[in-house]
C-alpha cells in the first residue's frame, strides 16, 4: 500500500526556560510509518507522550531531531523543516487533525465552523454547508443548535462538532486525538463508522483511543510510543 507519512529518527525534548532551563527529554529514535488505508493506534499509558507525538506529526510541536515526511501534492515534504506557508498548505489539503480542544471565534455559528475546512478548499458554500448538515445530523447535534456558537455547548457536543469539522474534508492523512473520549454508545458507533468510511476511501489514519473496544473495532495496527521514550531501552 502506498506510503503517506514517514517519521525517521525523530527526537523531542522540552527546555523549560522559566523553570531553571531544565531540559526534559521525551523521545528519541522514533521510526513511524503510515500508509493509505491504515488505522494505527498510538498506545502507551497516560502521560507517555501519545498526544505529544501526534502534535509533532501535525507540526504543532517542533522536533529536536529527525524528519517527518508527508506525501503532499505528489511530493514528499518534511514537515519539520517546511516553511509556515507550506505547513499551512499541507494542513489545508493533506493532513487533518481532530484535537480535543475546540478553538473558534465566539459567535460564529456551528454550521459555518464545520463547513469552513471545505470552503477553504474552494468548495462552494452551499455544498459545504449541505455536507456540514449531514455530518451534524449523523452526530446527533440537534438542528436548533446549528446557528449557535459551539462554545456554549457541552463537552460532548463540542467534541462532536470537532469531529464533524475534522471529517468534512477527505484528507489523505488524518490524526485523531481521542475522538470517542466523551461520547455515548450511539455517537461512538457513528464515529467508528466515519473512521471506517475514511479508511475505505484510502485515508491513512493515526489515532489515540482510550478504550480497547474502539481500538479493536477500527485499527489495523498499533504503535507503542513508550518504546521510544528516552531511557526506555537502558
Amino acid at each position, binding site marked *: 500500500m502506498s506510503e503517506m507519512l514517514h517519521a525517521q529518527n525523530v527526537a523531542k525534548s522540552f527546555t523549560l526556560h522559566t523553570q531553571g532551563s531544565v531540559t526534559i527529554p521525551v523521545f528519541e529514535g522514533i521510526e513511524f510509518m503510515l500508509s493509505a488505508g491504515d488505522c494505527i493506534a498510538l498506545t502507551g499509558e497516560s502521560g507517555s507522550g501519545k498526544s505529544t507525538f501526534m502534535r509533532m506529526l501535525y507540526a504543532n510541536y517542533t522536533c529536536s531531531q529527525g524528519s517527518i515526511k508527508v506525501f503532499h501534492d505528489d511530493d514528499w515534504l518534511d514537515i519539520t523543516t517546511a516553511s509556515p506557508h507550506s505547513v499551512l498548505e499541507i494542513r489545508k489539503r493533506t493532513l487533518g487533525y481532530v484535537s480535543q480542544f475546540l478553538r473558534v471565534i*465566539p459567535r460564529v455559528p456551528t454550521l459555518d465552523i464545520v463547513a469552513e475546512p471545505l470552503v477553504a478548499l474552494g468548495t462552494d458554500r452551499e455544498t459545504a454547508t449541505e455536507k456540514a448538515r449531514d455530518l451534524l445530523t449523523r452526530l446527533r447535534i440537534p438542528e436548533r443548535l446549528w446557528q449557535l456558537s459551539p462554545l456554549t455547548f457541552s463537552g460532548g457536543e463540542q467534541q462532536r462538532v470537532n469531529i464533524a469539522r475534522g471529517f468534512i474534508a477527505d484528507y489523505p492523512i488524518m490524526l485523531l486525538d481521542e475522538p470517542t473520549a466523551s461520547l455515548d454508545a450511539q455517537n461512538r458507533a457513528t464515529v467508528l463508522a466515519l473512521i471506517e468510511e475514511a479508511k475505505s476511501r484510502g485515508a491513512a489514519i493515526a489515532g489515540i483511543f482510550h478504550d480497547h473496544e474502539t481500538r479493536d473495532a477500527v485499527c489495523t495496527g498499533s504503535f507503542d510510543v513508550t518504546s521510544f521514550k528516552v531511557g526506555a531501552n537502558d
Partner: protein
Amino acid sequence: MTQMNEPLLRVEDLTMMYGDRVGCKDVSFELRPGEVLGIVGESGSGKSTLLRSISAQQEPTKGKVEYQTRIDGVRDVYQMSEAQRRLLMRTDWAFVHQNPRDGLRMNVSAGANIGERLMAIGDRHYGNIRSNANSWLGKVEIASERLDDLPSTFSGGMQQRLQIARNLVTSPRLVFMDEPTGGLDVSVQARLLDLLRGLVHDLNLAVIIVTHDLAVARLLSHRLMVMQQGKVIEHGLTDQVLDDPQHPYTQLLVSSILQN
C-alpha cells in the same frame, strides 16, 4: 498561481534608532497575498515602531521595505517619490488604528468617511460613492440609516467597524492593524474578530497585525513574530510558537496567560 507565491512585501534588515535607543533592530520577513502576520510582545518591545516603519509613516534608520506594486512591479517604498508613496498609502494599503478617532474624521458623516477615500483616488460620481459607502456599511454590519450620522454618535465597536470600512473601500491588498480590538469589550471584540477573519478570507488580504492579545493572534494570524527589546526573538507558525515556544521570553509570555 505563481503570482500568489511571490511576496507582496519584503522587509530587509529594518532598523529604527531613536538616538542611541533601539526602536526595532534588524527585522527581516516576507509576506504573501492572503497571509496574516501577527506581531506580539509587551509594551515598549518595538511592535508599533516596526509597524510605522514598514507602513511608510516613519522612515527607518536602516533597511529596506519593498512592495509589489500593481503597476510598477517591486518598488522600494522609501525610494518612491512622496506623491507615489501617498497614492500607495491611500489605495493599495490601509491602516487600522487602535483608536478609531485616529483613523476617522469625527466631524463628517459615516458615509463621508467612507466616500472620502474613494474621492481621494478620483471617484467623482456622488451616486456611486454613496451606494458604495452604503454597501460597505452593510459589510461591517452598520445599519444603512446611520449613513448620514456623525461617527461621534457611534459606539466604540461601531466606530472601529466604520474605520475598517473606510480603509477597505479602495480594495487595498495590504492592511496594517495596530491593536484593532484593543479598546473594545469582549463581546464586541468577538464580533470584530469574526468580521475581520471573513474579510481577510473573502478579499485575500495580506495583513500585519500588532496585538498584545495572544488569543487574538492565535485566531487571526497564520504566522507570529515575537518581539522583545526591539528584536524579533521568535518567528514561525502561530500555533507552533504559542504551543511549543522555544525562546525564554516567549515561554514566559505564553505561560503568563490566564486560563479560563
